[in-house]
């Protein structure tokens, strides 16, 4: 298909210095790229913390850090990965793709959008400054009271709280912005049931954020009052209740898990159909499953508290068992989408397949934990560490990289190198399994999580050494990606509008799109307007492809 030609004068914009432009921009695409860049920097930082953690655990004995530093390392690793890497990665993808995919010119509130972003680096710097002021927070990302009370922890925890207040506010504002954009700015013809699945997942995620995050920000605010003004919310020594904190935290914390996985599932639902050359199988079922996950997500939080003796176990066990079903539906939908397709293996598709094969384990090892008695055995062991990393790393991070390779040509007008991309994928897949699969076995053998050291007599050494080797493989896998981005940005910007022969509206404009996104929109009659344009609406059989396929189609 020919490259879109913009209307004369469309590219004439008010000229400013690049730095000033990036610092003050309210363009959703630039803010999206800012989000992604910022998340990637914090991803490198959190990854370094993880490497120190894994190095310390490689063999018994304290070799590199003492136990107090160790506690700071995993606390900051977890908090950073969740609040400054995964959440903003997905917010960044949403920022970039949602307005384009629904045919809008920008987000509904561009300036609030910029505000939401700039709170993140500020919060991140505040949180990390704890390392220079007597130690960062060290109570785990869950920050359980009374350990998080002032008498048991230092000022790093106050910085942690303030940072999370900022980040929490940022995501609440962001979610309102997404909802307003999706409900008010859809192009004519873009009904709710014609929206790309990715937009649906961002919408449900935004609802979850809007309902869950205020509870969390209230909770950390109460913790701040406890620590600094003698509040008595969560400290039993002054009449508070430590279980109340756990309820507030997990009322947010569990929907948060879905906040972090739904948009990644959305990405996979964009990539798998395009590279299978079929529509998503069961579009409505997929949306139904997404809504179901969102709804059930609010009724399972106490499965993180099965061992507290303060939970009505059968209810939360039942709801947790049920929430596996919609995720199962999605898996079958993805497989049925590939079934009888014509699959090509460009890097975005490889990462999508990595997501499917790896995230599956995170679903199944989590379903086992829905049983309270089994959870008595496995809770707070390395099984949990394995589970969360199969979900967030094997799931969300693979989704993020699939999206990065998929939308990079749209963002910068150039495709990332396929060879380097494949090296990145293979190393990351091997590293992920090598690092996180042995952790299941460590958990079964009884290794508790969050311990700085273990006895040589415990018999956990070999598996820990394997996990450490794996973590370095993951670290090395990021290098070809960074080199790839660097080289590609220096090369020619010749990707064209629609390098993947894709289906959705963002591929109907130039790469990169102009500030206002679209000169003109194709008619929207299904969830695949661009496919309809290229192959005809309601195409069930192939049209003579040669006349319509893009010029570089044979290349992959």
């Amino acid at each position, binding site marked *: 298909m020919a490259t879109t030609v913009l209307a004369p004068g469309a590219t004439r914009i008010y000229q400013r210095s690049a730095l000033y432009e990036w610092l003050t921009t309210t363009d959703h695409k630039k803010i999206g790229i800012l989000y992604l860049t910022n998340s990637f920097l914090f991803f490198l930082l959190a990854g370094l913390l993880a490497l120190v953690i894994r190095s310390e655990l490689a063999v018994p004995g304290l070799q590199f850090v003492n136990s107090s530093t160790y*506690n700071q390392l995993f606390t900051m690793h977890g908090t950073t990965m969740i609040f400054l890497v995964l959440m903003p990665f997905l917010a960044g993808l949403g920022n970039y793709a949602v307005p384009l995919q629904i045919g809008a010119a920008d987000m509904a509130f561009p300036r609030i959008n910029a505000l939401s972003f700039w709170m993140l680096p500020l919060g991140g710097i505040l949180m990390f400054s704890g390392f220079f002021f007597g130690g960062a927070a060290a109570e785990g990302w869950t920050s*359980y009271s009374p350990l998080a009370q002032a008498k048991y922890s230092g000022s790093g925890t106050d910085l942690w709280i303030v940072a999370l207040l900022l980040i929490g506010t940022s995501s609440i504002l962001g979610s309102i912005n997404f909802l307003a954009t999706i409900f008010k700015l859809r192009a004519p013809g873009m009904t709710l049931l014609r929206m790309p699945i990715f937009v649906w997942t961002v919408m449900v995620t935004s609802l979850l954020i809007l309902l869950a995050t205020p509870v969390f920000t209230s909770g950390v605010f109460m913790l701040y009052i406890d620590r600094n003004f003698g509040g008595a919310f969560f400290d039993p020594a002054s009449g508070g209740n430590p279980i109340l904190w756990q309820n507030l935290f997990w009322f947010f914390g569990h929907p948060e898990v879905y906040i972090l996985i739904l948009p990644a599932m959305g990405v996979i639902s964009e990539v798998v159909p395009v590279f299978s050359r079929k529509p998503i199988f069961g579009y409505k079922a997929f949306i139904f499953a997404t809504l179901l996950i969102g709804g059930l997500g609010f009724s399972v939080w106490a499965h993180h508290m099965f061992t507290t*003796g303060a939970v009505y176990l059968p209810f939360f066990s039942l709801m947790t068992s049920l929430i596996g079903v919609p995720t199962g539906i999605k898996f079958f939908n993805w497989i049925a989408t*590939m079934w009888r397709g014509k699959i090509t293996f460009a890097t975005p598709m490889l990462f999508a397949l990595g997501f499917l094969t790896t995230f599956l384990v995170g679903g199944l090892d989590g379903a086992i934990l829905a*049983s309270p*008695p089994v959870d008595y055995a496995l809770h707070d062991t390395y099984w949990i560490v394995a589970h969360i990393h199969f979900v967030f790393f094997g799931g969300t991070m693979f989704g993020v990289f699939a999206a990065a390779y998929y939308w990079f040509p749209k963002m910068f007008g150039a495709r990332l190198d396929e060879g380097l991309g494949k090296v990145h994928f293979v190393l990351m897949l091997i590293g992920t399994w090598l690092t996180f699969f042995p952790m299941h076995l460590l958990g*079964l053998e009884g290794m508790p999580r969050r311990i700085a050291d273990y006895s040589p007599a415990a018999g956990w050494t070999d598996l820990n050494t394997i996990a450490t080797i794996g973590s370095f493989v993951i670290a090395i896998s990021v290098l070809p990606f960074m080199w790839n981005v660097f080289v590609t940005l220096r090369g020619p910007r010749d990707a064209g509008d629609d390098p993947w022969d894709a289906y959705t509206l963002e591929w109907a404009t130039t790469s990169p799109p102009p500030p206002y996104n679209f000169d003109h929109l194709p008619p929207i009659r299904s969830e695949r307007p661009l496919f309809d344009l290229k192959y005809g609406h309601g195409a069930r*059989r192939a049209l003579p492809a040669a006349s319509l396929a893009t010029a570089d189609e044979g290349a992959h």
Partner: protein
Amino acid sequence: MQWPPRVRSVASIAGLVVLAPLLGGCSALYPPNAATDQGADIRNLYTVFLVPMVAIFLLVEGLILWSVIRYRRRKGDEELPVQTHGNNLLEVTWTVLPTLLVLALFFVSWQTLNKVDAESKPELTVDVTGFQWQWTFAYPQYGLSYTGIGDQGPVLVLPVDEVVHVRLHSHDVIHSFYVPDFLFKRDVIPGQVNNFDLTLKDAGVTYSGQCAQLCGMDHYQMRFTVRTMTPADFQAWVQAEQTKTRATPTPPPGGSVAGPTLQLSASNTTNFDQSSLTASAGQPFTVVLTNKTAGAPHNFAIRDSSGKVRFTGLPLAQPGQTVSYAVPALPAGTYTFFCSVHPNMQGTLTVK
């Protein structure tokens, strides 16, 4: 259909890569054999969950692998595949079947839960107290109590074949009582007493346990040991311990005072309120330790510059207590004083 040899070899290698670790890992995919009746129930339940999960894993990974190999796009094939949008029968099937499966699993799990959490009339009650970063195991009906020192946790001696009722207490932060061989843990929460019953199976065995809930700096060192005995041996052990305790009556807190008195206090578990003390060489002295920490006991101990422990003050000063320790004369030099329960609490003792 006949596949080209290249595809077959790729498929068989892929199959090996997936299957080999699975077969080799089958026994590794299990928790240890349970030491308690309750743990045995949990282990059986684990199998009930593991088998369908492994089956689903193989099914789904197999379907993915099959789709990827079978439906890859051949070179030069420009034709669109059939644009299937869905299939109601299929979709209802893969919604209903998993729902039935998880409901069945939930009901089995509920049965086991009721068994594991059941409490009957106990023959022995044990009070477990967790504090930063040690444990106290007490037998209220026998007047016995044991607190761990340093990184040496206390030993919990228990009879087999009897219902043991465990009560969990904390006065500082949340801990978790976890013995991997029991396949069981329960959180130790301040302001809330948690209970559970256990019945041990084999006598003469030692199990290691440790805190499973992050509780601060030395969380990783909060270990303990469980030792099992036949009921007869247990009764004999109780009597021997009671005799030993009566033979060495604990000196009353604030008792024996000799020589000059040094005041020492502790308000937390990371350091003493005083970082240095000074004493005279060749003269006994008394250290009066006031424990102002809410949740944890402390004591006063001395080691010399070579690391040899020269004095360990007992009994421990419980929260709120003041205890005097009579220290024998020391030659001049610089020593380190510390708390045996929290070896990280240290200060300098100058003897001149």
